């Protein structure tokens, strides 16, 4: 439990683009320098580095530090820092996991100022395509049968959802359209000034039925960094602090075939994640005025809406169809006001975290909303996690 004892005090976000001109490591270094300066600090003061270096591709791409992924250790080295503390988070809920590492390091006195980063890479060629002809180890149980990659992974529980609750995939257009509407307002987004229409969504090719192209976030090059410190130190720094009220990371769900996500696993183990989140943060769903839900695949928004208790199981599609997540409608849940992954690009849980930070620190510019308590979720409820943030004064 962090109890608002640790705060975010600065940030930087790179342009999110299909292919950056500079190598990923350079992008991460440059973004981190900006975040440290934004917090009013010098590199020499940053004594903690945390992050996740997952390169989330099913393709035959090598994970090379500084090229296709960036570890906290690599980043510290290339910034010329000499941290007392560095740690990487390796679970699926990378952003809440990294925030947890930052909070714990500061509360334990292992570091005073912690830089958390995430750098995502879009390699040349097919992102998930894999020319493998041999399936050994875990893959022997799925790849020979043609079950491979994250689209089939999410398509199975999505079909379960649609069939069980009599929902239509055409309703999900509203999720993608809402994400892209908000992403189109964000200058660093890959989708800046490029909204999506329902007609475009419905005309898009189906990849793994019922998943179509616009249900998937687009692979990008991009980096983001945040600076954390104690609530006590935060008040002496230039930006309004945003406190970490609490977080939860998923407990191990039932053991399954690789990438096999039955709907009942998502919602069953997800309920544990959410219960832990409310306990740890001391708030409940109605206290949160800025929920930011993970949308790397659009059906995940349904799953999070239901897991977090914003509607009953099976009702999220009706909530969405009725305009319930339109960030421009007073009283609706602005769950994609930051554009999410569908509206920014495959930055994993960064858009959700960044929107919480920008809105709660009063730095959202012409997108500024009136919000005090934010929630940023990442991945799926049964394998990911979430963080609750509170605005400082």
């Amino acid at each position, binding site marked *: 439990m962090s109890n608002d004892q640790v705060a975010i005090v600065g940030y930087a976000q790179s342009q999110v683009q299909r292919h950056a001109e500079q190598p990923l490591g350079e992008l991460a270094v440059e973004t981190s320098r900006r975040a440290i300066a934004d917090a009013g600090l010098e590199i020499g003061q940053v004594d903690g580095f945390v992050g996740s270096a997952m390169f989330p591709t099913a393709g035959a791409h090598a994970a090379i530090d500084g090229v296709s992924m960036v570890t906290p250790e690599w980043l510290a080295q290339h910034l010329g820092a000499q941290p007392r503390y560095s740690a990487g988070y390796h679970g699926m809920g990378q952003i809440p996991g990294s925030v947890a590492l930052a909070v714990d390091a500061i509360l334990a006195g292992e570091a005073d100022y912690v830089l958390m980063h995430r750098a995502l890479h879009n390699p040349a060629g097919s992102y998930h395509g*894999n020319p493998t002809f041999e399936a050994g*180890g875990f893959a022997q149980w799925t790849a020979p*049968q*043609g079950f491979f990659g994250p689209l089939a992974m999410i398509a199975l529980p999505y079909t379960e959802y649609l069939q069980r609750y009599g929902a239509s995939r055409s309703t999900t257009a509203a999720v993608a359209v809402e994400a892209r509407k908000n992403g189109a307002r964000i200058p660093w987004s890959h989708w800046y000034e490029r909204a999506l229409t329902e007609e475009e969504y419905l005309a898009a090719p189906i990849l*793994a039925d019922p998943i179509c192209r616009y249900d998937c976030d687009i692979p990008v090059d991009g980096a983001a960094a945040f600076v954390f410190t104690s609530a006590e130190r935060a008040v002496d720094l230039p930006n309004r602090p945003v406190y970490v009220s609490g977080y939860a990371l998923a407990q191990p769900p039932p053991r399954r075939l690789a990438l096999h996500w039955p709907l009942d696993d998502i919602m069953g183990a997800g309920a544990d994640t959410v219960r832990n989140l409310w306990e740890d943060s001391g708030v409940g769903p109605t206290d949160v005025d800025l929920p930011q839900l993970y949308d790397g695949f659009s059906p995940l928004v349904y799953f999070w809406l239901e897991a977090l208790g914003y509607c009953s199981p099976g009702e999220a599609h009706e909530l969405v169809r009725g305009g319930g997540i339109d960030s421009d409608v007073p009283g609706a849940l602005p769950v994609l006001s930051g554009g999410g992954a569908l509206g920014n690009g495959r930055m994993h849980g960064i858009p959700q975290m960044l929107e919480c930070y920008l809105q709660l620190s009063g730095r959202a510019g012409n997108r500024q909303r009136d919000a005090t308590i934010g929630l940023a979720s990442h991945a799926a409820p049964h394998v990911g996690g979430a963080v609750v943030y509170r605005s400082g004064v």
Partner: protein
Amino acid sequence: MAQRPLPVPDEQSAPYWKAAAEHVLTVARCSRCGAYSIPISAECDRCHSPDPDYRFEPVTGRGTIRSWTVIQQSFLPGFDDDVPFVLVDVELDEQPDLRMIGRLLDGANAPRHLGDRVTVAFEDLAPGSSVPAFTLDAT
């Protein structure tokens, strides 16, 4: 033409693939408590024995569809000639929530519903290499 990925049996899975080559579906079963496990692991999910002495035992190959997807674009090039194809998430009769995933060989246009009954079938990919799939039971 790209070929589909072939399973590479290891010491633990060799009996499974040997039975599959003879068109017999087996599932790893804990010798301590009798629980079936998909996929096989080092420990038993039910009794948590660190030494489950798993045996691949023949099962009926009958089960119930819990979900499906129609793959229109496979990331494995060996399936380019097979798209669109259906993958089904099947709960096997032997044990509640014992689930495996395979192709449904009835074609992408065959009507399917949650709860439909299926039976295992095998696709022969290469000499000695067959993988399990499913077909819809006649109603």
